[in-house]
């Protein structure tokens, strides 16, 4: 299954896109459940911290029919691993 990652914003305001192929099993076990959980907006203190951030990146990740938009401050380790894999494998 193809995963497309688009990174916009940042100080430069430049959009970069990377993609990678994962097996359907990996997508269903690791990335689709993560995308479901990531769709929930943060609350309280976390939301306030996120609101005051400027010039951070915004990631838009498309996994099959599932799409998720994540501010950089909400990227935890599994997402970072996925983005790193896509960046290593892409030329764009």
């Amino acid at each position: 299954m193809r995963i497309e990652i688009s990174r916009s914003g940042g100080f430069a305001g430049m959009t970069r896109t990377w993609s990678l192929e994962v097996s359907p099993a990996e997508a269903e076990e690791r990335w689709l459940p993560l995308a479901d959980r990531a769709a929930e907006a943060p609350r309280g203190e976390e939301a306030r911290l996120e609101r005051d951030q400027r010039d951070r990146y915004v990631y838009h990740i498309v996994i099959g029919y599932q799409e998720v938009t994540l501010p950089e401050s909400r990227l935890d380790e599994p997402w970072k691993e996925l983005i790193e894999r896509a960046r290593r494998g892409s030329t764009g």
Partner: protein
Amino acid sequence: MHPHPHCSIVPPHLLAHLAAVDDPRHAVAARAARRALVQLDPLLADRAEAFAAPVPPRTAVGRPLERRISDAGGQEILPGTLIRGEGDGATGDEATDEAYDGLGATDALFREVYGRASIDDAGLPLAATVHYGQQYDNAFWDGERMVFGDGDGDVFGRFTRSLTVISHELTHGFTQYSTNLVYEGQPGALNESLSDVFGVLVEQHHLRQTVDQASWLVGEGVFTDQVQGQALRSLAAPGTAYDDDVLGRDPQPATMSDFVITASDNGGVHINSGIPNHAFYLTALHLGGYAWERAGRIWFDAAVGGGIQANSGFRLFADVTQEAARARFGQDSEEYEAVRQAWAKVEVTG
């Protein structure tokens, strides 16, 4: 007291000029002009004094500049370890010393020219973290501090290499404590534009450059040699800062006809900022001289005057800057005319 001060036969800008004359042969005229200005409007009197003296009367008092530079040591942790506090000597680490000097240059513009004590006008210490993350290719404001990456070495080098990056980030702090424009769509693009405007003004003030001498570029020197481009943004010619085979072209518009509707980048905050950026540039170009003195003063007045709300768009911002120019320099002034024409040229006003 004159009942209609702005109908005075001598235009306020000429009075201001006369009032600022420091020549004994014209002492009487200068004194009369100063008296006339005082009768005109307290703000106009202020202006004459601002022109006559290097430091305006509202210069900030209270807590002096206090900088704190921390080192994240290549990890994504904040704040990191404090490595240079206020008054400490240079460390020899380029990013640390550039951040320290850049915060000083930014504070100098706001404090010495606009009379604001730090970003909150209450002497808040200025905090920055350098060496954030591994090959981290960004610089950002996290609500409390500036954070600088070392760059990936491929597209971006060290972000502290450009003073305008440091001053841009610190101005996000100023905006947080003034208009607090939300970071989305047009208010977000205004938030970005204020950071670019005061970002370049800090550099111009630091280098004592006039409108004609300045580059009007944001982030010059941040790209590596492999990228075809001189900077990230240009206020003089939005859309021309870079044109690279891999990265593509600078997407900034200069006028409302080319306004970009997009969901990415928080609704194009770094893209459509080209429009208010160019309006500022046109105002400064019209007035000439040092951009921070008149164009910058008008934008500063607008930002702290209370007329801009967190959700304000371009049109309201244009009205507030025109009102700020009128209030300080008068309806018949070239400053007011410069601002009015600039917003019309970028098609925000008719």
